[in-house]
């Protein structure tokens, strides 16, 4: 027997969010609603004497599958404006009609069957494991194979063949030299200057300031120092 209050709570948190599948505009909202549906179904499994399956439902569906959906939504862009032009005329009403007919058909079939309730066998992990590795061991091994095939298939599908040859670091360096770029790094600012700061240019071996040692951002903001005071006074000694 099931507590009616619990059933109606579960019915509310599964059916109402699942309607987001039909009416929500953004795919992210749909994904979050489906997460709620999955959690409601997990509670339903626990009530229906299947605690192991309830935990698996939370781990596999809300934890892995739906997060993978959210990940793919992130990958292909959240904007997701759906075009509402109908390619098949009347597809909306036809689809709703078919779905409603399917629901009515299924409930009709269930309502015509008489089912007498047996005593519950709680689906503890030990009981489930006994069934999986005993009666259904071939199915279990086949499904392991299916999972491997799926993983390899996903790898193959997401593999992109390289269209252009790969640029090695050597070629990139050669290209930089060819267009006339400085082959070495720019000097850091404030090196051998009077005080060590980002707004003071570095001095070259002749004691002259090096303009490009200062960040262009500081130049754009006019936050650089006047360079004249930072000349080295090496040869100034002979005029005393």
């Amino acid at each position: 027997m099931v507590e009616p209050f619990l059933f109606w709570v579960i019915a509310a948190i599964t059916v109402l969010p699942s309607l987001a599948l039909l009416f929500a505009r953004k795919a992210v909202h749909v994904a979050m609603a489906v997460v709620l549906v999955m959690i409601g179904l997990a509670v339903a499994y626990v009530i229906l004497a299947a605690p192991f399956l309830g935990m698996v439902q939370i781990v596999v569906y809300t934890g892995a599958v739906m997060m993978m959906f959210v990940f793919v939504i992130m990958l292909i862009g959240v904007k997701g404006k759906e075009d509402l032009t109908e390619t098949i005329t009347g597809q909306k009403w036809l689809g709703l009609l078919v779905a409603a007919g399917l629901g009515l058909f299924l409930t009709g079939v269930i309502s015509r069957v008489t089912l007498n309730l047996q005593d519950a066998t709680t689906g503890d992990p030990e009981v489930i494991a006994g069934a999986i590795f005993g009666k259904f061991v071939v199915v279990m091994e086949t499904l392991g194979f299916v999972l491997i095939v799926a993983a390899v298939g996903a790898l193959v599908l997401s593999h992109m063949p390289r269209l252009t040859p790969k640029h090695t670091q050597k070629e990139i360096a050669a290209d930089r030299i060819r267009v006339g770029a400085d082959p070495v790094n720019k000097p850091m600012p404030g090196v051998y200057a009077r005080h060590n700061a980002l707004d003071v240019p570095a001095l070259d071996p002749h004691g002259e300031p090096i303009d490009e040692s200062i960040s262009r951002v500081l130049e754009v903001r006019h936050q650089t120092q006047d360079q004249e005071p930072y000349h080295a006074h090496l040869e100034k000694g002979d005029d005393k």
Partner: protein
Amino acid sequence: MSPVAFVYLACVLFAIGSAAVLLRRNAIVAFMGVELMLNAANLAFVGFSRLHGSVDGQVMAFFVMVVAAAEVVVGLAIIVAIFRARQTVSLDEPSELKG
């Protein structure tokens, strides 16, 4: 309240999922509709398992979850591959098979 109520709930969820598959154009949303249909089938499995007092239905639901996980992996990889090739996830867009 008999556990049959959960089987009715599964029927409703299955109908909603099938409506999502039939109506939505966004491939990801339609795919989530497929997931909802699989979960409705799972709920029916578990409900019948409770009614019959045996764990066979729960084991089947567990197997359905495994197959659904494999299906999601491949399906999302296909969606990402189509998006990379055509910059769209609309189900109406890839119509090359029409010939």
